[in-house]
């Protein structure tokens, strides 16, 4: 997979315009600056640490840390912009929870120690990389200064040499910039370990949510069966038993009981139907996500324009998650939006299914937990999607329009080749 790098990025092999060349040169200068300011902070932190025993050092250490974080943020932004790939912030927590707690957290955060490593090395790296173009340009200038004006042949040779040196500088610039960016990335972006830790805690939370949601769902099904179909069937059996007894002596009563049993049977069927629909709507099995969303839109009191293009049917769990999310969003739309029209757009893009449900209603919808009902509401949709690494976003300025955007990574929806 190739990464998309913006045109403004500077890297090996990229052709430099005047502006980018200027930026690259300025960047190398900036690195010298951050390198030496970093040394100052390093010194300050050292003094703070040594005098911490006396107590006065702690505020110095804290200030030094704040400075270091500000400096590394600047460096990250620079490297991110020039390489076209942003550097994420690696810290476990910020420094905004009181001096002692912040210092403690920072000391335990591996990113702090990597920062310090960067502070120590950055002056050397920046110097080494910055000196290369400087040396080349200075030698070009000295040729100009000493060799020029001593006759046409030497002038010619000097000119060629100067051009060669300037061209070499220009050609080297992207490489130097890339080296500087790579160095920053090495120490200042989250280590793979930090990323893994974060990922694991994310997965842990979403798994817990998924397990929770599942057990809530099972309990709901059990309760629905118990209070619904099961109770109706008990009543039905009772009525039939009574009818059996009454049929000889009092056929009129028996007939009444039989027709009551029929009503119970029909009600039990209706209950079961509702339950099945909540577990896995048959139309989803029949027609897949596109058909099921179309069917749900048909029940909405607001006319919905459909625009669904997906290359193949996604995995059943993904289908089901997106379907229920769409159904919930449609219910919200019908209940709260006051809209005169709505739209649904479903696409497969960059390895993810992207579903947008919008309306021209009054807006102001928010991602708030839906009271006590754990399974409902937009927040419920969000949790459901999170179990699949999905994402939910609600764009709903007051006055509308509202768009609920859901994204679900999904490999199996790629076109079969």
């Amino acid at each position, binding site marked *: 997979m190739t990464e998309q790098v913006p045109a403004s990025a500077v890297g090996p092999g990229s052709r430099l315009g005047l502006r980018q060349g200027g930026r690259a040169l300025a960047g190398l200068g900036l690195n010298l600056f951050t390198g030496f300011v970093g040394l100052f902070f390093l010194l300050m932190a050292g003094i703070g640490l040594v005098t911490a025993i006396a107590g006065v050092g702690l505020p110095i250490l804290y200030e030094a840390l704040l400075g270091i974080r500000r400096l590394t943020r600047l460096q990250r932004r620079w490297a991110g912009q020039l390489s076209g790939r942003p550097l994420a912030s690696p810290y476990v927590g910020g420094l905004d929870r009181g001096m002692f707690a912040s210092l403690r957290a920072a000391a335990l955060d591996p990113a702090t120690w990597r920062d310090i490593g960067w502070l120590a090395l950055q002056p050397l790296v920046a110097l080494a990389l910055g000196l290369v173009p400087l040396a080349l340009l200075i030698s070009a200038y000295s040729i100009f200064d000493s060799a020029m004006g001593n006759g046409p042949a030497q002038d010619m040779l000097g000119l060629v040499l100067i051009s060669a040196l300037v061209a070499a500088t220009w050609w080297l610039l992207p490489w130097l910039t890339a080296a500087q960016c790579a160095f920053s990335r090495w120490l200042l972006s989250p280590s793979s370990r930090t990323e893994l830790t974060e990922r694991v805690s994310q997965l842990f939370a979403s798994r817990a949510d998924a397990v929770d949601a599942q057990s809530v769902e099972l309990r709901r099904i059990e309760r629905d069966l118990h209070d619904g179909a099961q109770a109706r069937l008990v009543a039905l059996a009772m009525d039939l038993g009574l009818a059996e007894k009454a049929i000889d002596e009092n056929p009129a009563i028996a007939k009444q009981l039989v027709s009551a049993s029929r009503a119970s049977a029909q009600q039990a069927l209706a209950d079961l139907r509702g339950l099945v629909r909540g577990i896995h709507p048959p139309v989803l099995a029949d*027609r897949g996500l596109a058909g099921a969303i179309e069917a749900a839109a048909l029940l909405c009191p607001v006319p919905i324009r459909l625009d669904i293009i997906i290359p193949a049917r996604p995995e059943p769990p993904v289908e089901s998650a997106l379907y229920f999310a769409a159904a919930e969003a449609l219910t919200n739309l019908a209940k709260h939006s006051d809209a005169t029209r709505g739209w649904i757009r479903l696409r497969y893009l960059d390895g993810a299914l992207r579903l947008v449900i919008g309306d021209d209603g009054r807006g102001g919808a928010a991602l708030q937990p839906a009271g006590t009902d754990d399974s409902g509401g937009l927040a419920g949709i969000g949790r459901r999607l999170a179990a699949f690494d999905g994402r939910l976003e609600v764009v709903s300025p007051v006055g509308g329009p509202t768009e609920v955007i859901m994204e679900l990574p999904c490999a199996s929806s790629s076109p079969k080749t």
Partner: protein
Amino acid sequence: MRVVIAEDLSLLRDGLIRLLTANDFDVVDAVDTGPRLAEALRQHRPDVAVVDVRLPPTLTDEGLRVAIAARREQPGLPVLILSQYVEQLYARELLSDNAGGVGYLLKDRIADVDQFVDAVRRVAAGGTAMDAEVISQLLSRHRADRPIGQLTPREREVLELMAEGRSNAAIAGRLFVTEKAIGKHINNIFGKLGLAQSEDDNRRVMAVLAFLQADPR
């Protein structure tokens, strides 16, 4: 009247055969899969087919697909679809050829034998039999302040029964009023909804269904 039955659960298939035979239908074939249904419809050209929406081998909406395909081959071939649940999407697809002679009922309705037999006869005669649930879902999409909201409760009842495909006489019997009163109600309904009247019962039903299925206004 010759009828083909398609139902994969033998319990229900035998029940349907018994029920229809007892009511003077001639069950010419009873099949249990989609492909066999397609074959039976081609071979027997029945007066009406009673088809379960879910059939092997796919156990999805196979019955519906086969029925719609058969109606493309034999336009107007009367088909009554039975299902455990109703789906507007399927009702729309069944009605989309505007040819009449279609039904779409919950399986629960079989329990009321007289009503069910009446529905099969109606479909065979080129009429329609839409489940009450289909109609009430359609109606619930329409907002109270729109044309549907201007109907009186009684007119609404008449509209629902008419949309299910029942004749004026049947509606009158259901509501314990005269056929003439029903005719008057229907006139009012068509006036309020802005629909053109028609002498033909089936065409009237189709017009009402089309109105209900259109985007809510």
